[in-house]
């Protein structure tokens, strides 16, 4: 089970700024281990963000994104106390969803 994400959502003027840290190895599939064996690719493939159940961001990722990725984005609207939910799915089908309250 992957570690929880660290999500911060803040209202700035009329938009919400969201900053997310994800805990993930993000293996490219290019690296070799000490024994010379290729480490299989293992990376987050899709990320979605919802605000009060409505999708505000949907992204397709690849193995070029660094380990423990940091994502920051803004969307219009949102009010203090609203929920922002982030979900990622990796190429092994593992999934993680975390939630933050807009402050």
């Amino acid at each position, binding site marked *: 089970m992957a*570690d*929880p994400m*660290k999500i911060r959502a803040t209202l700035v003027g009329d938009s919400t700024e969201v*900053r997310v*840290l994800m*805990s993930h*190895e993000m293996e490219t599939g290019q690296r070799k281990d000490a024994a010379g064996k290729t480490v299989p690719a293992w990376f987050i493939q899709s990320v979605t963000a919802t605000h009060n159940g409505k999708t505000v*961001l949907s*992204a397709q990722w690849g193995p*070029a*994104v*660094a*380990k*423990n*990725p*940091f*994502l*920051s*984005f*803004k969307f219009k609207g949102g009010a203090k106390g609203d929920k922002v939910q982030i979900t990622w799915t990796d190429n092994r089908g593992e999934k993680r969803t975390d939630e933050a309250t807009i402050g």
Partner: protein
Amino acid sequence: MITMLRAALAATAVALGGMLASPATYAQAGSAADEIEKYRQALQDGNPAELWEARGEDLWKKPGGPKNASLERCDLGRGPGVVKGAYAELPKFFADAGRVMDLETRLVWCRVNLQGMTEADARRSPFGSPERKSDNEALTAWITSESKGVAMAVSLDHPKMREAYDVGRAIFFFRGGPHDFACSTCHSEDGKRIRLQDLPNLTVKSGAQRGYTTWPAYRVSQGELRTFQWRLNDCFRQQRFPEIEFGSPASIALTTFLAYNANGAPFAAPAIKR
């Protein structure tokens, strides 16, 4: 607007690599250093050290070990359970243990004495890898984060602290091994660098402050959070010395020397480094 910061940074790094490989004149060494500085600045946003901090806070509060006890009664020097500002006063002489301890050594002590772990279990995996995460790194990340902004205030009032400082200083200047290296080989002059890596002068206040207060740090090149014990361990590896043992007397003495020299500076870690 979407910023996939670290993906963009990877592109910067590739561009830098290309630049380093191309023929260049003296002037460009300066601009390469400037570009690296920009890269370091860009890294400051979204430090993954926070992931370790979150895990560490959990480990601190969650009951564990054979006694199924949490670490919340652990005395880091400011009384049982006081975490705020504790790291800025470490290392410290602990009367209950009868010796000087740095944070990482103290955590082993608490895990043995409060949680009932064996010394060997508490000392296992001080430094993590993707295959095996380190509780020490997570706990250290969280506890040090609770001293962010607090001025370093290590006291040498206790004679054992004074002794640790003196011994640490002697180890700092100890030259040995096939290459005749000491800590001081790289860290006792201002404005020097190895390749393009700037080296802090740890024998003067400003350098010690800059060096000491920015550990632990998330190392982007390793994708791991590294503690001060790790920093010493890896320096001695590059010095061509044998391996310094985690929490050993020499490493605590050296930490005491460096931490005391950093006194007065606001603690600024967990940081992020290349």
